[in-house]
């Protein structure tokens, strides 16, 4: 359960204050799939960042599983993320000096994990995303789609309760993007993770349980998506999901 109350964020831009989010309220059910859409500059990524505790709001608060994020120190928030949060970015953000396997290991190792079972899990995840034979490749040796698949495996490595995805298909061509989304959905369904995704892509957004539209830093529309809100439906979810995403597969 994620709760945002009266959330505000103001940046200094070119010497003048720029309010990106204003008095925003939002509740997200556990294990649900929320898509945040809106035009450029509407505050989508900022909202995502605040929900994940990557920055402090100028006003208001964020409760993650009942924990007020602004009451935590930066290190405590980092610890919180390490345990419960996963991320997928538009630009992949893999560490260029680490192999695919090592990149997936990072969240586990940051928590002090080591040893055979941890490596085994990372290997499993990479096999799940179809990269079982490219464990020792460096990011530069992988295509964009492959890099994003490594990022997916990394996002699920620490068994997060909440997964944040920021335009996960934004840098990929249509076909590759569709594959990534399908994997994201599948992993999400299995792990029973709450998924919050920021996207420009309305077709993609429609696959969520709920779609929130931002404009000018506040919620202007909040309606159910066409995804099935019942996570237990399993296989049928993807198959029954209508629209172009089905065709893309």
């Amino acid at each position, binding site marked *: 359960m994620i709760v945002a109350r009266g959330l505000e964020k103001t940046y200094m831009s070119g010497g003048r204050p720029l309010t990106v989010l204003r008095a925003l309220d939002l509740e997200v059910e556990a294990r649900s799939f929320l898509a945040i859409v809106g035009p450029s500059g509407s505050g989508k*990524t900022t909202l995502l*960042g605040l929900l994940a505790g990557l920055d402090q709001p100028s006003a208001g608060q964020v409760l993650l599983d009942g924990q007020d994020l602004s009451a935590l120190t930066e*290190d405590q928030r980092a610890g919180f*993320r390490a*345990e419960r949060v996963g991320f997928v970015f538009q630009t992949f953000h893999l560490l*260029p*000096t680490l192999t695919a396997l090592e990149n997936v290991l990072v969240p586990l190792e*940051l928590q002090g994990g080591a040893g055979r079972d941890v490596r085994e899990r990372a290997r499993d995840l990479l096999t799940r995303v179809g990269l079982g034979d490219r464990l020792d490749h460096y990011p530069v040796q992988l295509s*964009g789609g492959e890099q994003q698949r490594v990022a997916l495996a*990394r996002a699920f490595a620490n068994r997060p309760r909440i997964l944040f995805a920021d335009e996960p298909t934004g840098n990929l061509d249509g076909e590759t993007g569709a594959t990534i989304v399908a994997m994201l959905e599948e992993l999400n369904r299995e792990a029973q993770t709450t998924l919050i995704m920021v996207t420009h892509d309305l077709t993609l957004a429609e696959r969520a349980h709920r779609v929130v539209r931002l404009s000018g830093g506040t919620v202007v529309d909040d309606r159910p998506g066409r995804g099935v809100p019942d996570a237990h439906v399993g296989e049928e979810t993807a198959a029954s999901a209508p629209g172009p995403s089905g065709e893309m597969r």
Partner: protein
Amino acid sequence: MKFGFAVRLALRESRHGFRRVGVYMASITLGVAALVSIHSFRDDVARSVREEAEVLMGANARLSANRPLPDSISGWVDSLAAAGAGVARVVTATSMVLAPSSGDVRLLQVRGVDGAYPFYGEVDTRPAGAWLQGIPPGVAFVDPAVLTQLRVSVGDTLVVGRVRVPIAATVDDLPTDLAFQTAVGPRVHLSQRTLDESSLLGFGSLARYETFLRLPDRAERDAVRERYEEVLDATQVRYTLAEEQAQSLSNGVRFLGEFLALVGLGALLLGGIGVASAIHVYIRERQPGVAVLRCLGAGQWTVFTAYLLQAAALGLFGAGAGVLLGIGVQRILPFVLAGVLPVDVTPRFSWTSAAAGLGIGVWVAVMFALTPLLALRDVPPLQALRQDFGEPPRRWRLDRVASYAALGISVVVLCLLEAPEPEVGAAFAAALGVTVALLGATGWALTRLTRRFFPKRASYPVRQGVSNLFRPRNQTVSVTLALGFGAFIVGTVVLVEGNLLDDLTVSFDGGRPNVLLFDVQPDQRDGVLGLIPPAYRDAAQVAPLVPSRLARINGRTGEELRADTSGVERPEGWALRREYRNTYRAEIGPAEELVSGRWWDGTPGSEDGTRVDTGDLPGVSMELDIAEDLRVGLGDTLVWSVGGVEVTTVVTSLRRVDWNRLEPNFFAVLEPGALEGAPHTLIMVARLPGADERAEFQRALVGAYPNVSALDFSRVQEAIDAVLSRVRQAVTFLGAFSTLAGIVVLIGALASSRAQRMREGALLKTLGARRNQILVVLFSEYLALGTLATATGLALAWGASALLVSQVFEIGFSTHFAPLAAIWTAVAALTVIVGLAGSRTLLARPPLEVLRDAPE
């Protein structure tokens, strides 16, 4: 190409993002500062020496020899004096001086000075003005160091030879002194008459006889030389003009200056590597913009020119700052180098030095920027449309080859310009190339090995830190080069000095003799031996010393041999002309090895046991190197002139001599009997282990035999230590300078990889890394970088000093680990501190902010 557009573009571009590359220009700044300060300083010294030429000599010309002037010359000197020229005699001898009040004895320089000397400049004394009328007979003026060494004060009495003289004044500044001369041995100044009364100047005493002339008219001075050249040559009297002395003094400083300039140039070229590396990163960041420009119709060369102009402008700023800094350093150098300067140096602004520094700085910046800038021409316009368009392939095109060639030629030309001689410049350029290549190769190998063998079990942040050395666009190699170069210089100095000191300690310790006595007259032999405590008396070695000159080799005189044009290798002139101090003895010495021929008793040489038949002539055993310089071998006939009597000898053996050992060693050892009856003095070496025993012995000696000089080698060792530490200071200063340049390159490298570092830090935070974990990542990275760079430099320093010590100094090499560890720690610590200080903001900024505007 549209030049106007290129200029406007350069101006607009330079408003943004150039600050980071600007840091790199600081390495140009340091190098230029070094060059400007050293060039200006060199001019300052040369000018000061020239202006002070007469004062530095205290006269217009000087006659000098190591015996009194022969009558032929003193005759015309007298006539000069009669004609109104100023004439002053100064005799300098080395002698034991005793201070009865403290009981201390020291071997000091004793000078007898004629009234009028010096003709130019003023002598500072305490009490003031004491020297105005010269030194009165019966008193001594002393250098201040004499007071401390003998623990006396003005008014106390000194015993010099056979006279007792009260100290009337101290000589605080004699304008003829070169700063380093007084450091060699403090002096006691007497009047000429008092020196004569001391009867120090017996037969065979080591003394220097100088006659100073006041001949203000240059034509007159030159006329003297022309008229008396032959007499001077024949009598081995040197005639030196004040301006010649000034010239040779400033030559010495000039050489030092040129050496310093080469090190400055090294720093500048290292900065150049930094520039190349910075430009490389900068233009990669600019590629999207360049692609857009190309889309909009800008030509390849237009874009290239725009960026080349920016590089030149930055070079100009960097070099300009360097000129200002250099002028500042120029004013500091006289204080840093006070110990080795012949005169007080007044700094003056030098336009030529400033202009040269500016020009060289801009040139180096442009040359090193050229090659990476050429990559701009390969940016395809298509990249504006598709960001994931790959790196343009690097091809070996003509322009790239030409840019490398231009860079190489520039480096060589700069080295040639800065070096005292073309050979030195070429050698320096080659050495620089080899060093940089070796540093680069060693650094590369070490980092690869680290990556390959770094323990997989190490904690994640540590492994991440180490692997950061390999991040794309990393500047590990340039930082390794820059820091490694500094560590290399400092490490080499420390190791070489350590080994030289080791060798000294070995030479003077461990049962070897430590007291050398010379000027012992034959009839004083038993008496002097009697003063040595009985326990050490038998171990004392005595050798006769017979001053001789070479009259002929195989029947031909030195002049004939030197004039030989038949193509045979001619003997070295100095070896023919020098005064030899020969000896005769029956046994081979402890520091000698017979290499070829046979000793008098028939012992064969280690390599060749040829027996030479000398007929009824006496044999002579020559030292290997001098035999080579004289081009003589077994069976050659040498005729020695001994006090006017000729002694003919035949070379019967060649010896290798370990000159590092304090034994009575000689170039030529004659068969016993050959020189008996010839005028000679004795030298003795003895070992007196205790400092008290040595002091007691010297006191007794100066009381009984004031003409005998004793050299206490523990004092010599102290003096050598002092000289070495001065040299070390100067070179360490340079090493520190290089290290500083390395740190600037490091700062530049950190600045230019800052965006990437920020992004990685933010990403790690996003993934849940705590502040401490990120600190460990950074710490590990900088520690690894500093450690590898220093290890690279020190590994090379070890090799270089092992080579220097064994090949140049010809002594055994041993590694001194403690100072190496200290250098290692210091440089690594500096790297970590600089690195962490530059990463503060990385830890402070919230990750979202970074990830939002992070371009991949």
